[in-house]
């Protein structure tokens, strides 16, 4: 691990899930700094500011919930992918959706990984390992979807 923390943007409206994501990342042993954003609109503001400010560093990961208030998670993903300096930001879509269409949409929009929010605590905490393995340079696609 590097000394500088890995910047992770978390767009999630459910405080229960925010807690779980944080816990998963903490348990993975990753040195990280988490930017929490709780709705789509706020996420868009954050991304716009990031795009306008040349000095601001792009996050290494973006964990996006799909079902967000105000602005849809897919739109946030789309915006993220538009920003040139975010081209290395790995987007992990967190969702409980079982619509196959959702999966197809986010694949098309360039998501790096699709994490289906599980009903099981241990399975959820594997999210941390997933981020670590992607960060260590292993293939994000290989980690696949734990669902």
């Amino acid at each position, binding site marked *: 691990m590097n000394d500088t923390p890995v910047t992770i943007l978390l767009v999630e409206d*459910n405080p*229960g*899930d925010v807690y*779980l994501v944080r816990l998963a990342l903490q348990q993975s042993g990753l040195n990280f700094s988490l930017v929490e954003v709780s709705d789509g609109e706020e996420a868009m503001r954050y991304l716009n500011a990031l795009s306008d400010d040349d000095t601001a560093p792009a996050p290494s990961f973006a964990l996006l919930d799909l*079902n967000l208030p105000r602005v849809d998670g897919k739109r946030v993903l789309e915006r993220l992918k538009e920003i040139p300096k975010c081209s290395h930001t790995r987007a992990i879509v967190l969702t*409980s959706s*079982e619509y196959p269409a959702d999966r197809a949409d986010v694949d098309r929009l360039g998501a790096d990984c699709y994490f289906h*929010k*599980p*009903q*099981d*605590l*241990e399975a*959820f905490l594997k999210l941390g390992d997933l981020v670590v393995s992607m960060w260590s340079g292993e293939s994000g696609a290989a980690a696949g979807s734990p669902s």
Partner: protein
Amino acid sequence: MPNAPLTKMAVVGPALLGLALVVLCVMGFTFSADWQGLQLAYSEVVRADELRDINNLFLSTMKDAETGERGFLLTGEAQFLEPYNSSLLAIPILLDRFAVATKQYPEQFSRVQRLTRMTKDKFAELQQMVDIRSTKGAEAAIAIVATGRGKQSMDAIRELCAEIASYQTWQFLVRTNERQVKAERLMLVVVTGSIMLFGIIVVAAIVIRSASARQERLRAEIERSQVMLMTTFVSIGDAVITTDAEGNITFLNPVAQALTGWNQDDAMGKSLVLVFHIVNEHTRAVVENPVMKVLKNGQIVGLANHTVLMAKDGREIPIDDSGAPIRDGSGQMLGVVLVFRDITERRNAEDSLASSNAKIQNVLESITDGFLALDDEWKFVYANAAAEKILGWPKEQIAGKTIWQDFPKLLGSEVEANLRRVAADRTPAHFDSFYAPLNAWFELRAYPGHEKGITVYLNDISERKRSEMAITLSEQALRDSEARFRTAVQTMSEIVWTNNSDGQMMGEQSGWAAFTGQSFEESQGYGWAKAVHPDDAQPTIDEWNRSVAAERPFAFEHRVRRFDGVYRLFSIQAVPVRNEDGLIREWVGVHTDITDRRAAEAEISNTNILLRRSNADLEQFAYAASHDLQEPLRMVSIYSQMLKKKYEGKIDAEADTFIRFAVDGARQMDLLLRDLLAYSQATIEVVKGPATGVSAAKALQKALVNLNTAIEECGAHITYGDLPVVFMAEIHLVQLFQNLVGNAIKYRGEQIPFIHVGCRKEGTEWVFSVQDNGIGIEAPYLKQVFGVFKRLHGKQYPGTGIGLAICQRIVDRHGGRIWVQSEPGRGCTFLFTTAVGEQRV
């Protein structure tokens, strides 16, 4: 009976006290009376002594006087007169003392008086003797002495003195005796009285002792009940406030503190009106405080509806409360206890009930069927708008009346019989009925309703009924003989006509003429075509000519103008009638008016489309609901697992149990939702696209992969024969096999499960079978197992009870059947069918 000791004490106490007083009085009285007697007796003794002394002194003095007189008489010397003279002075004093001493005894007193008189006489006699001696000399005096008169009087005096003395002695004896008696009696009274008093004191001591023990117990009891009361107040879910008789607060329990926002210390002594501030929910007017009402009227009061408590921090809480006076034993009001509770949740429940009622009513109002609800007295409880329209009867008019009052012609009809049977047997009935006053046919579906009432759905089916009847009639008529045919022609609403062999209308056509209003001339030849709708006329003539040329039956539909200018749609059937030579003699045709039937058919198909759409909507809803429910459930599930992970074994065994229940419950709920999702998807997928041919063997293999863990766990042997290609969505076939094989594994017996999947062709169907050697199913449950949520076993066989329902639904939607054969203990075989080749879904 906590009052018994008190009552006993109240009776026994005064009784003992009274008894002691009586004893003391008796003693006192007896004592004082006897004491007086004793005193009297004693003074008597003293007096007797005194009298004896006086008596002795008196007698000796008298003797001195007589001796002195005798000496003077003999000697004449004056010195002898000295004792006489001193006696003369002493005697009156002694007599006085006598008189004083005997004053109380009249008998003695009279003796003393007699003695006084006798003494006076004696002294007169003595003085006379002295005088005689002095004047006449000794002889004269001695001569008188010799007469013995002096001795005589002196003896009398002595005798009287002795009498006085002896009487006094007797009196003394009597008194002494009396004193003895009195003293003994006094002794008796004192001893008896003392014993009685001692007894009373002992009894009193026992009573007081037991009473004080009881009092102690009672006090302990009161203390205990006080503690219990406080604990109750503190721990009950209702808020409790008590006040004194002025309405100032003396106590608030924690719930009351939470609701009012006041804590006990701040609220103590404050006026209740300040702390318990209530207003009417709608008018915002301050509501009269129940405590004040109680204080005013001294009665228990409840609160009016829609009361809202304004808490200290500005919260508004709808409450329900009551106040009651607190009284002491004598009925004096000590204060008021006020009990109230937060009814927000109940209010919400009521509101949501009301809104769901409103929804139901909306649905009822929007359906096209008439809907009536009748109570157990046959009164109208509810009628929807459609019913109003169908019956032509404004709602307001039927409300509150019985169905028999509003529709008297129903009495004695089959409708009445049917409705009464529904009400009595609580079974639904479905029937058609003609109601003459409205000249209409109705289709009625009656169901047992709420509380002995019934509900009725009704449809006006007059049009359908009439056309059905007409068709029946016309078909019948066509089969009839010529004569009857002719008669029928006149009377039927259908039009029967004849054309000649060339296809031209010839001769009288009474039906056609009556319907179209064409005259005889107008209809002849091809004239009839003028009554056919202009758009339909030429196609009709062309087709008719083709039929006539080919000598084949004619079938067509066209619109015919009625005499009043209205077009009606007809179906026309015509056949050539041949003579004995086989040549066409004439054409006979029937025009059947199908306008209404067509409209009815259109409506039915329209309704079917609506029904299908609403079914699809419902399925979408079930899908969305079970999907959306999974999201919050995920929170419950994960966080109860978190609780388990962090706190299991750290709180106590009970907490571990609770956590386990929560985790298991969430898991079960998750399974249920997943299965419900699958159940609703069972049809959605079908709607989405036509199934293409799929290999059943492949589908089975996929299912077995999904079941891998379960299969390995129990070491199940699964075999299958030749399986065909079928036309079903693969996802459904996989699901079917997965559920059926999964069931076979789950309900295994003691032995290792052997499961065989087979298939055979029967007619136009494939019959698949999944056979196992498990526990089997008892005969009564063979059908039941396919119902949603139907489970035959408890926790030992986990599951949601939806699996077989999903299978049933999938098979149903593909036009097949599913059933099970079983003998308990010998395993069971599930069978399902699907069409050979592609079927229309």
